[in-house]
């Protein structure tokens, strides 16, 4: 998906493939599944974090609107403007916001909580999607283990067949004879 790190995806794929070492096509399919599910889990978690980040400015602006402070300049009275500068990391805005929040006994945690509540429906949905993906990722791993256990039986069976087979004893050829097998 655009905006995502393709090299990180390749790196994850390489790590998992090197660890699992798929021995056949079915295992390769299941390994790929594991990587895809894990990647989507990481995506949805990043999305949840970024969603809260996007809502923080609005949450702060809402909180600032309720805060009254005579010391701030007229420009800074626009809560959206101040909140926007605060989210961009503007030091001056950060200081002013801290003063304003302190004056009303609010903390940054309260702003984050407000941001979460603004996006609660979306976060809950993403959470459900992550849970589904986690189950599928674990199932893919379980399927690989089960498939490998079945395939482990096949070489064993082959080995048994070799052991049960009749062998003819090849006598040692006389020393020094040329063309001896």
């Amino acid at each position, binding site marked *: 998906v655009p*905006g995502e790190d393709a090299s990180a995806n390749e790196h994850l794929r390489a790590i998992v493939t090197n660890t699992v070492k798929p021995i056949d096509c079915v295992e390769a399919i299941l390994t790929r599944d594991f990587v895809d599910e894990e990647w989507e889990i990481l995506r949805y978690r990043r999305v949840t974090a970024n969603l809260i*980040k996007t809502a923080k400015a609005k949450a702060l602006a809402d909180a600032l609107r309720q805060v009254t402070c005579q010391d701030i300049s007229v420009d800074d009275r626009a809560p959206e403007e101040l909140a*926007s500068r605060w989210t961009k990391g503007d030091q001056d805005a950060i200081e002013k916001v801290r003063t304003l929040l302190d004056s009303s006994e609010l903390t940054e945690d309260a702003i984050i909580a407000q941001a979460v509540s603004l996006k609660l429906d979306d976060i809950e949905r993403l959470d459900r999607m992550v849970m589904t993906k986690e189950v599928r990722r674990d199932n893919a791993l379980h399927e690989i283990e089960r498939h490998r256990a079945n395939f482990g039986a096949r070489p064993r069976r082959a080995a048994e067949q070799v052991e049960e087979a009749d062998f003819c004893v090849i006598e040692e050829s006389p020393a020094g004879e040329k063309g001896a097998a």
Partner: protein
Amino acid sequence: MITLRKLQANRKNARASTGPKSAAGKARSARNSRRHGLAMPIWSDCSLGADAKALAHEIAGTSAELLAFALRIAEAQIDLVRVRRARRDMIEPGLSPYSSYVPRKRTSPPEELALVLSDVAPQLEAMDRYERRAISRRKAAIRAFEAALRRIASRP
């Protein structure tokens, strides 16, 4: 009771309102209610069918006996890939530079993805049942394939 003249006019108009006449028009209108096409079997798409056959041969190897079992795995796998592709196609348009989904100037690319994804999340969640079915079918197909493999391996 309507007049004969009106009845004839109605019938004439009705004959003129029976949908597209050309083959291209009929083909287009046949896809009017199509949303993502995930309910259609993969064999209705030639390229997907060819992909499934190629994958089946890869899974079965040289064994003709295993091919039918491998084809079931491949069919479910290609179906799964199709669902995942449809999901990506649902997200990507929102991230295009020409999209008006999100206020671009105020958001970074990860935030854009978050806004777009949260916007299409209900559709993605609804699409999940196709993925669940494909995974379930693939699981059953793998079991059947393994059972066939065991039968072949246990032959004297």
